[in-house]
């Protein structure tokens, strides 16, 4: 296959599957799914440091040459998100940030007003902003305009496993994107990831469907295959949908029986 790496913020990522590590029951499972997914980048959250903590997530990830993408999960305001991003940059020595500014715990849906404000501030502060957003083409456009390096619409609410509920909106976002589009949130199983890639998304970001699967490493492998399959299908170009059948065998040369 020709080189089809994802290029984002001027950097090449070999895998188009970005893995969230949230929800994994142990560090061993994190290691297993990193390996099975073949991912090039995984997300982490910033939380209060436990002095007793043994086994560093950072070591586990960087030992595999996987890039860290810290997030601002849990932040409700632009102020909180900007501070969290700055702390992540200081702790992890990266200016890449997955920006999440959500409205409440129940929906975990982005708060568009705070999100756009935070994105603008962070871009101004030199961050490479990966913005977790709604499946709203206009908000995606605004996030691109303020300088985000990737827009990451949710297919459905975080952790819901409902898949891509509005493929049309995702396709609209892809159609006018000037930066990579990453389908983030809502994936339930492999076919959801494949669909996202068939719609033209540049990558898929998922955590729960792998970390909470009965066999996380097996599902990580399934997701990697689905993302790759969906990407190949997108590049190959699907046939047009039609209302009636079109026989694939020749209609001429039939014997008279």
């Amino acid at each position: 296959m020709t080189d089809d790496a994802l290029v984002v913020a001027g950097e090449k990522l070999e895998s188009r599957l970005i893995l969230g590590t949230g929800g994994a029951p142990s560090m061993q499972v994190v290691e297993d799914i990193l390996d099975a997914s073949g991912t090039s980048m995984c997300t982490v959250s910033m939380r209060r440091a436990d002095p007793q903590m043994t086994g560093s997530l950072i070591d586990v990830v960087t030992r595999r040459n996987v890039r860290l993408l810290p997030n601002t999960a849990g932040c409700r305001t632009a102020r909180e998100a900007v501070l969290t991003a700055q702390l992540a940059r200081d702790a992890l020595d990266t200016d890449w940030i997955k920006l999440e500014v959500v409205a409440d715990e129940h929906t975990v849906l982005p708060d568009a007003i705070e999100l756009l404000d935070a994105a603008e501030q962070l871009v101004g502060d030199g961050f490479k902003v990966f913005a977790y957003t709604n499946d709203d083409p206009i908000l995606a456009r605004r996030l691109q305009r303020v300088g985000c390096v990737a827009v990451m619409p949710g297919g459905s609410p975080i952790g819901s496993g409902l898949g891509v509920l509005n493929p049309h909106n995702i396709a609209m976002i892809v159609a006018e994107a000037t930066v990579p589009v990453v389908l983030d949130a809502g994936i339930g199983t492999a076919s959801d990831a494949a669909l996202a890639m068939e719609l033209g998304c540049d990558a898929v970001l998922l955590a729960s469907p792998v970390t909470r699967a009965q066999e996380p490493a097996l599902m990580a492998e399934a997701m990697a295959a689905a993302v790759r399959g969906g990407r190949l299908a997108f590049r190959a170009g699907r046939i047009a949908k039609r209302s009636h059948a079109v026989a694939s065998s020749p209609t001429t040369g039939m014997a008279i029986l």
Partner: protein
Amino acid sequence: MNVIINGEKETVSDGLTLAELVSGRMRTDKGVAAAVDGAVAPRSTWSDLVLQDGAAIELLTAVQGG
């Protein structure tokens, strides 16, 4: 003097720097970030940053997350 570290009130010696606090509490300062009174305290400032009585310090690190 008393300070608040990650939400817990603690007594520390007067004149303690943030760098001393971190090295005394954490196995490593790798991957650790600090905020004091709601503002980021960049790593490069830790050794000169003398904590004040009543300061609220947050020490953060990377954990599993989506």
